[in-house]
């Protein structure tokens, strides 16, 4: 069977929810960051699939994907810098250890 729009949408939605699940359950900061990357990749897949099957005449989806990849890199850079700093002060990258602020 030829893979079509529905297969791609199924994969991307599954990826999205795996990302959300990972973000909410994992306690390691790097893994949480990876979950966010999963979410962003599912969105990229969505855009490319819609562009190919639903709106073949448009180019907006492909362009959007390129921008998402760039922004994801910027976000990961800042996040990793923050995590390194957190590791210096807390000696851990577990979210539970960084629990000073409460109330």
């Amino acid at each position, binding site marked *: 069977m030829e893979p079509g729009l529905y297969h791609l949408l199924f994969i991307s939605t599954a990826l999205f929810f795996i990302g959300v699940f990972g973000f909410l359950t994992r306690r390691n900061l790097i893994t949480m960051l990876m979950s966010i990357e999963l979410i962003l990749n599912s969105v990229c897949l969505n855009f490319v699939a819609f562009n190919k099957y639903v709106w073949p005449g448009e180019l907006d989806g492909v362009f959007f994907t390129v921008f998402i990849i760039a*922004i994801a890199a910027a*976000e990961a850079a800042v996040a990793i810098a923050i995590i390194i700093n957190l590791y210096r002060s807390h000696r851990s990258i577990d979210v539970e250890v960084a629990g000073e602020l409460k109330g």
Partner: protein
Amino acid sequence: MGIFLNYMKPELMISLIIFLLLILKLGKGMTNAALLPFIQVLILIGFLITLFLPAEGSLFHGMYRTGRLIGFQKAVLLLGVYLISLLCSGWLKKSEHLTEFIVLMLSALLGMFFLLSSGHLVMFFLSLELATIPVAAMSNFDLDKKASSEAAMKMILSSAFASGILLFGISLIYGITGTLYFDALVSRIEAGPLQVMAFVFLFSAFAFKLSVVPFHLWTADVYEGSPFPVTAFLSVVSKGAVAFTFVSVLYRVFQPLGELWHILLMITAVSTLVIGNLFALRQDNIKRFLAFSSIAQVGFILVGITANDASGTASVTYFILVYLFSNLAAFGVASVIADSTGRENISDYRGLYASHPMLCWVMALALFSLAGIPPTAGFFGKVFLLGAGASRGQLWLIVIAALNMVISLYYYLRVVRAMFMEKQLSPIGTITQELPVRFALLLCVAGILLTGLLSWIYEYIRLLI
């Protein structure tokens, strides 16, 4: 080229200041004390240009558009940044990385300007990211404090998660409509099930950025852990920019789903008001207290947005202007006290009136304005918001909002009581107030009193739409 220069004046001004600062940084010739007044003057010039030389039109096939209202909103945001740079000059002068801090703050502001002007979802997404990523880096600027890095971590993770959700919503919208231009979207959106789902994703991303209950969990921690200028920036400038954009996106793009978001707004407004107020009751840290108070204020903004006509836009813009003066005055006083003594708790403010009466009066006035007591501008801001909300006939919503104003009086007055009436056994010590801080507090007080009493300000905003 001329059109380009004319329409994008505010953005070009900010970019110019950023580049100038980066070049100055290379020279290493200036101390913080010499550099800071220079930066403040540059920001002030930017503010005056944005306010008095507005332009109207659109560029890049409608990707970027500007108008008199957008120009005014940009000027309000710039005024906020100017006041923050004055109010927190104590912290800024001590900072090791002043240039980097200001550059990050101005880049976030640049992102907000593009956000206000965006007419295309790619622009919208890029500028939203430009407005949030630098703020996360900024909240880590107390490098040796554990709380600061924790706050930055919470900020970057929650905002990245929120933008992931936003993007998923945008991708569904693209799949349905095949366009990303705001103007083209209006005619292609209808209330189908997939559209509704996409809209809910988008709505929750906005709710994240505005810290609307139930998406508010990051707010208090980030506000408490960040340095004072960042907290002030987040609670006033960031929130203002997102609120302006939220109004314009809802009113312009999602008008076909008006019934749906009316219900969503009413539910979230009630939950935000109630939860924000209840949690503010039990806070002792002043930043945390102001965080929950700002969540409650967002509830009032949401009530105003339900109006769905010009009065909604006008009252939200007016309220943000008033809220900027009052919240920055409160943050300014708290930041001055924290700078000199290192204390941030409300219980430390006991008996402050005996030693520093002027600071106490400014704080009291700011809190009265936040609570909405008549002679101050906060009262008029809330009257316009609730009046706009009432125009749709949902009187129960207005009653709940008014009741919450009464509850909020209790915790605002708790601070006032601590300052004026209670005795402190161990006095807080002397508080040094520099000239720029005094000047900024004076500006804030003038703003709190005058924006309310001069009725033409609201009329002027109304005419801009």
